[in-house]
């Protein structure tokens, strides 16, 4: 008997917009998939590409990075750096053969509880399609 695949997704949310947006979704009782595990960071620019890789290595099936809309960053330009960096790590991972559906980035502001729900549903659906991540998961190797 096999259970349906429930993806395990790590989300890095910026403290000032996306985390508050997710909080708003919670307080307004919006219902969304529970596959997402949130890690709060101070800014999306704090997200080192190594975070993404380490999450995938340690058993995440997908990663979501979310920050403020361009121009809204609490630190003025942190999300601009994040955007540039993310576009590149996504390309690089894709070139190595990691399914591009596993890595996502979004802009969610503190007032967009509804958008947060849509983003989560989209990411969960994408990762569910991509299936469990086995490519370079750490515990798959046993020597």
């Amino acid at each position: 008997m096999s259970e349906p695949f429930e993806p395990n997704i790590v989300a890095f949310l910026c403290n000032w917009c996306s985390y508050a947006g997710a909080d708003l979704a919670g307080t307004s009782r919006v219902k969304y998939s529970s596959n997402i595990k949130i890690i709060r960071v101070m800014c999306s620019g704090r997200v080192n590409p190594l975070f993404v890789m380490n999450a995938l290595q340690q058993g995440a099936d997908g990663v979501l990075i979310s920050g403020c809309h361009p121009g809204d960053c609490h630190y003025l330009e942190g999300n601009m750096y994040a955007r540039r960096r993310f576009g590149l790590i996504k390309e690089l991972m894709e070139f190595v053969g990691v399914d591009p559906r596993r890595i996502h980035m979004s802009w969610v502001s503190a007032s967009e509880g509804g958008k947060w729900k849509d983003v989560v549903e989209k990411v969960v659906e994408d990762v569910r399609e991509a299936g469990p991540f086995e490519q370079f998961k750490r515990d798959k190797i046993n020597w």
Partner: protein
Amino acid sequence: MVDQAVIREKAKEIVSREDVKHLVGWRKGTFGYRVSPHWVETPEDAEKLIFSPLCSPNLTTYLTLEEKLPLPKGEEPDRRKTALLVKGCDSRAAVQLLTEQGIEKEQVLILGVPCRGVIDQRKLEEKFPEALGGVEAEWDGDKIRLRFPEGEKEIAREELLAGNCLNCRYPNPVWAEEILGDEVEPWSDGKAPGVEELEKASPDDRWAFWEKEFSRCLRCYSCRNVCPMCYCEDCILDRLNPTWVYRSVNYSENTAFHIARAFHLVGRCVGCGECERVCPAGIPLGKLNQKMVEEVRDKYGFEAGTDPESLPFQASYDPQDQEDFIL
């Protein structure tokens, strides 16, 4: 093309200067056809300098490798310049270091030598196994002339050039105090061979390819050590707390290491091909780097090490950066 005699004369003149500590160039190595770096301290040392298609080492890396020991009290630091012979790609590395403030402008004296591409030692050994017994090489138009002890041989340039030289766009030094010899005509549009085929392949095929390559990695970190751009004093690969990349040699960690290495070079890699040359397992690291070089060039219009005034790519942004991938 430049005459060796010109280089030697210039080197003599440079090292006799008061403000120059030494000059780094190439000389014939002690084994077979190999070439090793050569430190010219006195005018006599300059006699050993050579420049040939075998001079692949990128000497820019010695600018940051030089160990700076703490000085005894009251002693002034040595502020004399390090002179350096650079090919086109090496000069880009120097410019990139300059924009990142890895080196100071006053600290170096760059002598450029235009280059028609260097020989890939694996191709050389495959085509001419006798090269291990020693060979001298020189450019001759679109050919490379190899001088063996038993006689001369000629071969088309494309057949021997290293992968990164085939798609070289900057054979002439972009930044140098003085360029020795005549400039050469660039021969490529910068599209690396093999990258496009991989891009077109399915994700599974790409993964199969890289899994096979990465699983051979010994984690000797030669690619990191030789790279002119890898000069962090505290490298994430050596760090134990937090451990970003474990030291175990398996393809999970190897993949993580190679992605991390390639990512640290995004917008910084100058395509000198040193990582690929020194890799004992023959992993085509150049493909990984070149893919990102093309990505950055095509989508962001940035080329590493071409403009001494530019900001480092990953430490700057453009409000108009593409964001079609953002939800």
